């Protein structure tokens, strides 16, 4: 796998629909062969537009897209050989499951016995053997989605695009489908470009995630890096939960900086701040802060418990800390010896490495 680093390449791609607003700005993105890459972002961030340009349903206003080294802007969609799974499945309602899967094979003039073999294989891949004669209307949402996945793979494309394919499913089904798609990807090694606005979906499935906002890729990295080391406040805010402190850098040295808040000072890890006097937003993941830490931590402050919400495996505690009334802590319910009661004053500590000083909001 990963034999080619730039199997798909977006080269300085711009896209505008009306000549006034750029939906995609100067997109530079390489996708390796066999990779599962997710475009993640809020609606209107340009991620679906990127996918449509790759599929050939939209043309880039500027720049070029390369697939396996070939420029594809002038190739019509039906000659690109890219499989695609659509948001609402887009199964042909007047054809049976078999005919749906046979469609891409028939237009490629693949002989019937060979086509039947491929269809059988594709159906068994999504565990839908025996459903070939059904009409799409007779299938549940999850089954329809699996047919759509099978159809996008049945003609052995090198690249499969998925446009929020699980958006219409309920939560449990969505989760099991996430694993199923991930396993299919792992077993056949096809390159997948996946678009979603659901961050947990992106974190679960992808090799790499491209976080889109405002027509630009904000960060492109592996799921754990994205979560642990966001490079700007948008990514920190968009992925997972996040506690923030807005302040001004008062001192900076040796990979540490001091940030002056309204009425206190904290030590943080300077990521996008360069010098004294800069405005910054410090981001800290809830699970990185501890109550009454046993080890020594370079940030230790007192806060008042404002709200306690029981969540089964953990308890969410909202604390008024250093002038931020929305400071969230997640306490595992196994450590029940802690004295978490509404109105109590508690000590909260965290390492300065985990407090990332990013661009101001």
């Amino acid at each position: 796998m990963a034999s080619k680093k730039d199997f798909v390449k977006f080269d300085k791609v711009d896209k505008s629909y009306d000549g006034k607003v750029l939906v995609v700005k100067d997109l530079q993105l390489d996708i390796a062969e066999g990779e599962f890459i997710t475009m993640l972002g809020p609606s209107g961030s340009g991620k679906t537009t990127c996918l449509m340009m790759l599929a050939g349903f939209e043309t880039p206003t500027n720049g070029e897209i390369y697939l396996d080294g070939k420029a594809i802007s002038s190739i019509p969609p039906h000659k690109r050989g890219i499989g695609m799974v659509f948001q609402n499945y887009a199964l042909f309602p007047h054809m049976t499951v078999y005919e749906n899967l046979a469609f891409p094979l028939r237009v490629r003039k693949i002989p019937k016995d060979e086509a039947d073999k491929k269809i059988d294989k594709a159906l068994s891949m999504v565990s839908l053997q025996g459903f070939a004669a059904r009409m799409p209307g007779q299938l549940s949402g999850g089954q329809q989605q699996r047919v759509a996945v099978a159809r996008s793979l049945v003609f052995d494309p090198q690249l499969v695009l998925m446009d929020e394919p699980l958006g219409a499913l309920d939560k449990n089904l969505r989760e099991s489908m996430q694993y199923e798609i991930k396993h299919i990807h792992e077993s056949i090694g096809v390159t997948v470009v996946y678009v979603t606005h659901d961050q947990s979906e992106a974190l679960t499935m992808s090799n790499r995630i491209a976080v889109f906002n405002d027509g630009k890729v904000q960060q492109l990295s592996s799921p754990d890096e994205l979560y642990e080391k966001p490079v700007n406040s948008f990514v920190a805010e968009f992925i997972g939960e996040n506690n923030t402190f807005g302040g001004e850098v008062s001192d900076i040295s040796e990979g540490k900086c001091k940030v002056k808040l309204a009425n206190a000072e904290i030590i943080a890890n300077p990521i996008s701040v360069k010098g004294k006097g800069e405005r910054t937003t410090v981001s800290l993941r809830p699970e990185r802060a501890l109550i009454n830490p046993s080890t020594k931590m370079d940030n230790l402050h007192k806060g008042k418990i404002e709200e306690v919400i029981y969540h089964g495996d953990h308890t969410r505690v909202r604390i008024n800390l250093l002038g931020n009334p929305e400071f969230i802590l997640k306490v595992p319910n196994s450590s029940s010896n802690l004295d978490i009661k509404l109105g109590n004053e508690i000590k909260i500590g965290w390492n300065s490495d985990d407090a990332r000083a990013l661009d101001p909001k």
Partner: protein
Amino acid sequence: MSSETKQILTTDGIPLEVSLKKAEKKNKIKAFLLVAPLLFFLIITYVFPIGDMLFRSVDDKMVTQMLPKTFKAMENWDGQELPDEEVFAAFHEDFIKLVEDKREGKLSTQLNYTKNGFKSIIKKLRRASKKFEEGNYKEQIMAVHKRWADVEYWRAIQRRAPEFTGQKYLKGMDMYVNEEGKIVSVEEDRRIHRVLWLRTLEIAFFVTVFCFLMAYPIAHLLATLPMKYSNLLMICVLLPFWTSLLVRTASWMILLQQQGIVNDFFVGIGLVADDNRPEMMYNKTGSYVAMTQILLPFMVLPLYSVMKTISPSLMRAGKSLGGTPFVAFWKVYFPLTIPGIGAGCLLVFILAIGYYITPALVGGASGTLISNQIAFHMKSTLDWSFASAMGLMLLSGVLVIYWLYNKIVGIDNIKLG
């Protein structure tokens, strides 16, 4: 299904079905009361008059009631030779009564439908009957005119004896019951209705085809354009609906006449010579052009409503799976529009087959349809029973098409909106 069905009871011990019926009774009454005014209106204005008209097409009581004694006397007549004195006496008695009531004119009209030539001899008989002496009516009546001595005319009278008749339907097909009681076609040069039926079917068929060819792209555009353009286009499609049918037809008369705008244009671009302008009106061309334009919205709207529900991602899916735009259209998009095509074609065809005003105004002699003939008999000849017979034939033609459509495409496959 389980083999033994146990009666399910409610908590109070009443059978569930009884309880359910009771609970739903109030709603049913309410629902009925809501539709009752319309139902009442429909019965009075639709079911009753149409039923009455249809009954008229087979009703032949008028003559039966005007000549009761004659027909009674004719029961023993074999129809081979002239009837005997008994029939003539009975006929005389009936006729005198009619003359007293001043209804002999109606009789002559009715009998004339059956056989030409009755009008004058009945007039003569009325004048002569005043001087008739009692007894030997056969001699006296036969002396009035030689046709009264012709057995053909007495057979014609006898044919009007039954209270019900299907002869109007035969007439609608250019057929009649001849003297021997056989159903035969009328002479070649007098067959007008068959030509009209065929022309009606032909024009309705081609108007449907033209409407389909023109409406399909428009409907597709309507369904896929962004809202602000599609609204404008929709107004253009609906504009004809807001204009009077008469005004639209009259506009076509202005456009299509020999010195009209279309002809001027053809001459202007040198397509035809000025002294050889084609006739586009008062013939089939006129009917085709005007009817296609007028019926177009009835094709566009069902097509549009069906196309609107087809997700654009289906065409995209077809293309992304490797189908050329044509294959994607033909294998994916087109089959999904069939319910709309069926609805539109059925609607346009049925409307076209009974179209009246437009062919009457721009159709001329060669472009008129069967409905114009029906109107002619309603207004001019006052042969209402013949008009309603043809109306019923038209209706059954439509039902046959509907049945065929159901057999071929399936009526549940139809979609009007």
